């Protein structure tokens, strides 16, 4: 009954309701979670979650120094490991006119992105700069082809699934929370500091200590 679920966990997948609906529903039951944890414990692994409501994944029972070194190594190669995904997500953020939260389940349509590019000429130029970042793209491809290949790149890396082929609509998967977790970790260690920080309270600010960074290039 949970064979497929265990295989997906062993394969290193993030089990979320978008990409693995059935497996996620099973893991929502405490009995199944207990059974999976007991099975994984024999491999010195455990069931972990990206957040309280986030995707499930298989993690090591005990994090050792070499595992920390692997993460540190990834951060040292930040541009190669995370750079391509961040650049593509940032382009989507700028092209989509309606506010996007980059949360699991959110939908994006290629047509929406294309509209954003048509309305903003600088976005088209920024899209072309993703040549070399997006897999399988030629320099003289059209904007639409760039966008399609970009979404396919994200799909192949597991960040989106194709929810409707006819409308070319994609949905973010739970794996996106891993990127947010890494960026939050970097932010907490103040490794990346914004250009300008707006310290003034805005209308509607109830006194929370969060500072909203205003970025000149936006």
């Amino acid at each position, binding site marked *: 009954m949970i064979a497929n679920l265990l*295989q997906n966990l*062993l*394969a*290193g997948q*993030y089990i979320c309701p978008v990409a693995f609906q059935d497996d996620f529903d099973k893991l929502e039951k405490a009995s199944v979670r207990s059974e999976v944890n007991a099975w994984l414990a024999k*491999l010195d*692994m455990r069931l*972990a979650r990206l957040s309280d409501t986030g995707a499930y*994944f*298989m*993690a*090591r029972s005990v*994090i*050792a120094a070499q*595992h*920390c070194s692997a*993460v*540190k190594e*990834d*951060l*040292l*190669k*930040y*541009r*190669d*490991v*995370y*750079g391509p995904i*961040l*650049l593509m997500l*940032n382009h989507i*953020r700028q092209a989509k006119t309606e*506010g996007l*939260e*980059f*949360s699991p389940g959110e939908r994006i349509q290629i047509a929406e992105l294309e509209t954003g590019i048509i309305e903003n000429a600088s976005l088209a130029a920024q899209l072309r700069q993703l040549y070399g970042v997006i897999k399988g793209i030629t320099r003289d491809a059209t904007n639409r082809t760039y966008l399609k290949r970009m979404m396919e790149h994200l799909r192949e890396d597991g960040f989106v699934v194709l929810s409707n082929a006819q409308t070319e609509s994609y949905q973010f998967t739970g794996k996106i929370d*891993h990127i*947010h*977790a*890494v*960026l*939050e*970790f*970097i*932010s907490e*260690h103040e*490794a*990346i*500091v*914004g*250009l300008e920080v707006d310290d003034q309270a805005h209308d*509607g600010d*109830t006194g*929370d200590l*969060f500072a*909203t*960074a205003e*970025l000149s*290039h*936006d």
Partner: protein
Amino acid sequence: MTSETGNQGSQIAQIFASLAKHSDLLSMALDGPVETGNREQNKAIDALVMVNALKPYEEGTYRLNPRLRDFISDHLISYNAFQALTRVKDRVHQAQAQWSQLQALRQAGATADADRLEWALDDTVTDIDYAIERNLTLLNSLVSTQYGNVTNLKAKLNQNLFYGREVDACMTEMNQVDSIVDLISAEALNAGILSVRQLINRRLGSKLLNWRVQLKDAQAIISKRLFWQRKMERRLNNLAKSVLWLNQHKTSSGIEIDVDTSAPIAIFKPVSIKVKPHLDVRDKDPVTWDEMVTSIAKLTKRIDRSLPAANAKAAQPVLAAEMAEIEIILTAEEFMLDQLTAELLDSDQTISLCEWKSDKPQLNLISDEEWLLYASGQLYAQGFFVRMAIDDEQDPCPINHRFYDFLVTCKTSSNRIS
């Protein structure tokens, strides 16, 4: 008094009759201002203005009375964006003032005025009840529809912030209502004005708990959304800052951060363990057997090396030609060795190589030692029995054997030189 009441009743009936008669125009006014037009419309506008259902807005333009609009909105549960909740603190102060005055009138014996004031207090308490119920209905409708009165996400988020503050103000007013209920209830009991006590407890006191629960639920949802909103803003902020860093530090490949075991598990990529099942060749199950046969069929065919090659080359003929005989020229030692070999084969006697050499002038050119070493080795190789003639057999420590001759016989029973 009865005639006044009767007149008032007929006036009110006329007002509602006028509203009913011009209901179409009132429906239009609900969506926006109405303008003067044809004679019939102008007549209707005049009638509604007379009963204060429509109010002048601009030259030739009239709007629906806000109180009427509120009444209809409450009925339809349809509210404008950022519509503030009704403040009740003024009504609470009014109720307190009315109560104080009521007490004074009762003590002074002014029964008629006290009765009227009690009726006014009833009205005020009912107003407070209605205002709080309306606030809760408004909050519930907006929160449950996720601020469906606007479509823009930014507007929704801003409304969430707005109503977060409104709910905080409502909670403060709820405390004021609670205080006034306790105060009036206690004082009414002491003063013996039980009707007021019953009024205040039934209309406000008994509902306070439920109101607080509903308000707290709305507050929780709004707070949760506010937290989510902050979280989303932070996420987008992090994304934008990261990309900015990438663009501005093109020569930097990464970031150096110490990662220890206390780092959140979410930043560690999931482990992947490859699992590859193999066929159990001992399994006799038909399904497994078929699968095995299928797998074997996919293997490349064995090359049968037993068959001859298709295009084997024909054997190359060898051309033989007459060759000139090579005359073998033997040296003196080789010639004499052949003679010695013939003599050994003809007789069974043991021949001393030195003695045999001594009367052979053909071997005078080589020394005895050379003859012994050469002949002994050659004869031994041919299978003759070769024996050293050792001089010092009595040597107590025979490490090196000193010999002076070899004795050769035709017997080949031993292959050792002894």
